[in-house]
C-alpha cells in the first residue's frame, strides 16, 4: 500500500512540475499583469489585451530572421518551449510577395542583431520616407519606440555616443552607426506606421486615396494614471479605414482607459493576419481570431508577448 502511495505522489509531482500549462493547475501568467477583455465604448466594440510592464514580468520578443533557413513559425515553436505565452501577432507588413515563404519585410528590420532588411521604408510611388515608428525590442523584453520624424533617436552601449541624437533618415552616417549598434547589441528592430504619438494622431484623412475598410489591430504603448507603463493590443473587429479606426482607438484609450498614449502602432491585418491569444491558464482564447483563417504558418514576422 505504501508503495502505491509513493508511486501516486511521484506521478502527481512529475505531472505538476513538467507541465505549467495545465488548465487550472499552474497559471501561465498573472492576471495582475495581463488582462483580456471585450469592451464596448461609444457603440464600438474593442477587444483588448492589457499588459503591465512594471516589474518587467511581461516581455516582448520579435521574430523576423530566417535563422539557418528556418521559417518564422519553426523558430517560434523552438523558442516557446517552457515559456508562458500571452499572445502572438503579425507585426509589420510583408513586402515583395504575399507568401510568407518568399516575402520580405517592409522597412528597416533587424532580428537579434541580424539584418533582415537594410532599407528604411519609403513610399512606393514617391520614394519619400514613410512609416515613422522605429520599434526597438530589447533582449530583456522591453520595447522602445522612436518617432523617426523627430530625428532624435538616442542610443547607449555598442560604441554609440549617448549624448548624440541620431537622425536615421537624414544622415547615412547615423544610419550606418545605428546598424552597427544593432549588430553589436543584438538588438531587434522593425518599422511600422506610427498612427499616434504623444496622444496626437500623426496623419490626416486622405480624401485622395480610398483606404480599404477592414478589421484593425494596434499596439499601444503608454502610461496609466498610476504611472505604470502599459502595453495594449487593441483589436477593432468592425471594418473601418485606418484613419477612422486609429481615431476611435486613440479616443477609447484616452477616455476609457485613461492612458497617456506614447505611441499607437499599426499591426498587419492584411494577407498576413496572424494572431493567437492565450488565457491565463495557457489555453487558446478565441476572443481575437484571424478573420481570414491565417495560421502561424502564414507569418513572415511575429511579435510575441510572454510572461516570466
Amino acid at each position, binding site marked *: 500500500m505504501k508503495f502505491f502511495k509513493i508511486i501516486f505522489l511521484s506521478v502527481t509531482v512529475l505531472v505538476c512540475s513538467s507541465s505549467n500549462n495545465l488548465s487550472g493547475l499552474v497559471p501561465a501568467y498573472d492576471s495582475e499583469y495581463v488582462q483580456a477583455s471585450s469592451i464596448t465604448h461609444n457603440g464600438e466594440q474593442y477587444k483588448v489585451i492589457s499588459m503591465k510592464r512594471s516589474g518587467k514580468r511581461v516581455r516582448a520578443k520579435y521574430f523576423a530572421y530566417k535563422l539557418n533557413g528556418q521559417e518564422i513559425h519553426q523558430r517560434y515553436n523552438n523558442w516557446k518551449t517552457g515559456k508562458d505565452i500571452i499572445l502572438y501577432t503579425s507585426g509589420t507588413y510583408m*513586402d*515583395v510577395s*504575399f*507568401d510568407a515563404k518568399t516575402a*520580405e519585410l*517592409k522597412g528597416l528590420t533587424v532580428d537579434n542583431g541580424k*539584418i*533582415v*532588411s*537594410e*532599407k*528604411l521604408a*519609403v*513610399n*512606393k*510611388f*514617391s*520614394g519619400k520616407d514613410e512609416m515613422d515608428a522605429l520599434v526597438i525590442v530589447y533582449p530583456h523584453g522591453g520595447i522602445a519606440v522612436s518617432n523617426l520624424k523627430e530625428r532624435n533617436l538616442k542610443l547607449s552601449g555598442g560604441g554609440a555616443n549617448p549624448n548624440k541624437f541620431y537622425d536615421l533618415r537624414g544622415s*547615412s*552616417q547615423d*544610419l*550606418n552607426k545605428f*546598424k552597427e549598434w544593432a549588430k553589436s547589441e543584438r538588438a531587434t528592430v522593425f518599422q511600422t506606421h506610427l498612427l499616434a504619438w504623444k496622444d496626437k494622431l500623426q496623419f490626416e484623412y486622405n480624401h485622395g486615396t480610398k483606404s*480599404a*475598410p*477592414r478589421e484593425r489591430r494596434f499596439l499601444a504603448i503608454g502610461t496609466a494614471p498610476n504611472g505604470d507603463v502599459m502595453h495594449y493590443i487593441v483589436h477593432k473587429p468592425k*471594418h473601418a479605414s485606418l484613419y477612422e479606426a486609429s481615431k476611435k482607438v486613440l479616443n477609447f484609450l484616452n477616455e476609457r482607459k485613461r492612458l497617456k498614449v506614447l505611441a499607437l502602432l499599426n499591426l498587419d491585418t492584411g*494577407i498576413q493576419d496572424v494572431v493567437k491569444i492565450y488565457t491565463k491558464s495557457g489555453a487558446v482564447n478565441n476572443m481575437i481570431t484571424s*478573420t*481570414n*483563417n491565417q495560421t502561424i504558418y502564414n507569418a513572415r514576422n511575429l511579435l510575441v508577448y510572454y510572461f516570466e
Partner: protein
Amino acid sequence: MFKKVNLILLFISVSTTVAFIYFIITATENYDDTDLYVLEECEPYSEFNLLKEIKNIDSSEIVKKFPYKKYIEESGYCDVNNISNHIMILDSNYNNHWDISMNTLLVALTDSLKEYKSEELSKFNPQFLINKIEWAKKMKRYGDCYPNNKFLFYVTYEFWMSQISSLMYKYNGDNSKLRYDFRYKYLVTCLSMEKYFVSFGFSKKEKMINYLTEGRYMYIWNRIYKSTSLLTKLTLVFLIFLTIFTFIFSFKKIFLNSKK
C-alpha cells in the same frame, strides 16, 4: 440584322480581342533586350596629385574648400588604392583622421558625387546604375578589408544603396510600365541581394491574380463580402451572371447547330 445570339458572340469576341491587344501592348511596351555590362564607374588609373591640390588650404577650411569636382573627375576614386593614398595624404597633412580625412572624403564620395552625377540620376539609366551598385558593393568589401577606414567605405555603401533603391521607386513612379523592363528587374534583384528591397506593391488586379494563384479563396471571399459596397457586390453578381449567360448561349448555339 443581328440576332440576339450573334450579338452575344460578337460581345465575347470583341472583349477577348481588346483584352488580348491590351495585354500584348502592356507586356511589350517596355521590352528592351539590351544587355547590361558591369563596367568601371570611373577610370582607376590617375595622375591626380592630391597634395598639390590641397597645399594652400588650411585645416579649418579643408572640408569647405576641398576641390570636390576635380577630385571626382580626376582622382580615380574607383580604385581602393587611390582612396587609401588620399587618406594617407590627408592624414599626414592635417593629422586629423576622423574630422578631416574621413569627413572630407565622405562628402566627396557621397553628396558631391551625387550632385555631380545628378543628370545621370534624374532619369532611369540602367547602365549607369549597375556600375554604381557594383562600385558601392566594392566599397563595402573594402570596409571589411581596411577596418581603419571602415567608416568611410561603409557609409559610402549605405548612402549609394539607399539612394539608388529610393530612386528606383521614383523611376517607377515616372513610368509605371518600367517594372516590366528586364533591366529594371535586374537592378531590383541586385539591390534585393544586398537586402535593399524595392517593391512597388500590387494593383488591385495583380493582387487578385496573386491571391487566386496562391489559392487564397477565403481571403478573396472575405474581402469582397466584408469590405465592398452593395453596388460593387451587385456589379460583380451581374458580371458573373452575364458570363454564365453568354457561355450557356454559346454552347446552346454550338449544340443546336451541330444537331441540325
